[in-house]
């Protein structure tokens, strides 16, 4: 980048900043003024999650189905019950199955916590699809909301990844073999899977590729369980939560809930 602001690099950057893609992500530039600095603090998402006034159509259940809200409700249920399950569950090859059974058969209220977690997980995946269907059918993905659709698709992916990583944790035959099959698909990842396109050219092998990264070795075993546990409880929820904050904030910034056409 030319340091005096008139070089070719700077003009390329200006062009990127004027492109429709950039404008859909960042609505306007940021003027570094004292007013904007105080607004950064006072307009943060937590103070503005709920709008100060609602348009009448936004509360019509037949238009929104409240599918996004229901999805978020399931997410909250999953966070709460999940944290409660973490008090008993130990993610090791020797103990995981036994702890799952312990929760189910002996720990007071363990059964309902486990079942709530399980059923809310299924329900959240279903609710996400219903939400997506509603947004699609009402055309709510159209500008100015096109970037929020992109955020939503990413949230869909992370919901499915949460579901997939959580599937291994009961550590029974079903989950082990489901994840064996699932992670085998990673072998065929382009570039970073050893059986995928260009994988061998880049020196991938069964010991060092995308699948080994997930599995922690060649076989689904204790290392895999621990990895999936960390992904399931820390990594993916944090990413999903950040995306949700952006998602909710953008609903407000893109003009509130879309109205009937």
């Amino acid at each position: 980048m030319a340091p005096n602001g008139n070089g070719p690099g700077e003009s390329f950057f200006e062009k990127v900043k004027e492109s429709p893609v950039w404008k859909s992500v960042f609505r306007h530039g940021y003027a570094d003024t004292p007013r904007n600095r105080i607004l950064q603090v006072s307009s943060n998402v937590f103070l503005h999650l709920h709008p100060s006034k609602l348009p009448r159509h936004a509360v019509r259940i037949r238009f929104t189905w409240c599918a996004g809200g229901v999805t978020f409700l399931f997410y909250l249920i999953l966070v709460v019950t999940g944290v409660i399950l973490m008090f008993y569950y130990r993610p090791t090859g020797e103990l995981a199955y036994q702890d799952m059974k312990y929760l189910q058969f002996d720990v007071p209220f363990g059964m309902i916590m486990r079942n709530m977690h399980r059923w809310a997980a299924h329900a959240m995946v279903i609710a996400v699809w219903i939400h997506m269907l509603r947004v699609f059918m009402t055309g709510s993905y159209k500008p100015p909301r096109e970037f929020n659709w992109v955020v939503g698709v990413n949230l869909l992916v992370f919901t499915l990844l949460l579901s997939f990583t959580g599937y291994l944790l009961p550590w029974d035959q079903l989950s082990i073999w489901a994840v064996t099959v699932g992670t085998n698909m990673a072998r065929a990842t382009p570039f970073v899977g050893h059986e995928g396109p260009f994988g061998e050219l880049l020196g991938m092998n069964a010991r060092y590729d995308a699948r080994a990264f997930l599995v922690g070795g060649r076989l689904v075993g204790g290392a895999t369980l621990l990895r999936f546990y960390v992904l399931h409880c820390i990594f993916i929820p944090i990413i999903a939560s950040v995306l949700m904050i952006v998602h909710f904030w953008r609903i407000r910034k893109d003009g509130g809930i879309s109205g009937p056409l």
Partner: protein
Amino acid sequence: MANLDILKQEGCDPKEHIWSRRNFLGLVGWSTVLGSLGIGTLAFGRFMYPRVLFEPRTTVKLGKPEEYIVNSVSEKWIKLYRLWLIRNPDGFVAQSAKCTHLGCTPRWLESENKFKCPCHGSGFRGLNYSPNNLFTGRNFEGPAPRPLERFYIALAEDGQILVDFGRVFRGERDEWIKAGAYLKYSG
């Protein structure tokens, strides 16, 4: 804000200075942050691949070569390691017993001199000696798209046959003539 504006704002002549102090410190600050994040990310990538795996060994020893009959397919290791040890007049092949169609275990049919998969009927060639034995294991009937794989085979220091099923040789890629796909032995 563009560098030019900052220079002007700080009262510097853009003809004499290309960096204001704020430009410079900003650049140093951001490259430190992004650089350490980048190094951290690379280190994390390596961190996820441990040096030692607590998994069953992929190298196994299958006894002395003279324990196997010349011109035969040994089914001794099918249950344990899922491979056939095939002895030719001048050497050995360690052939995977995993069908290349959908992964069932084929059967060795000695009377018909072929390996036949019970799931979908894939057939693979049996014994018929040629140098490096490029014949055995070739797919010739049914849905299997490629020959049965071969494992790395060598003689260990104690004289036993050593097989590494972490290293695979594929016939359709002409890998069977590579070193390690065939164990020369005539005793």
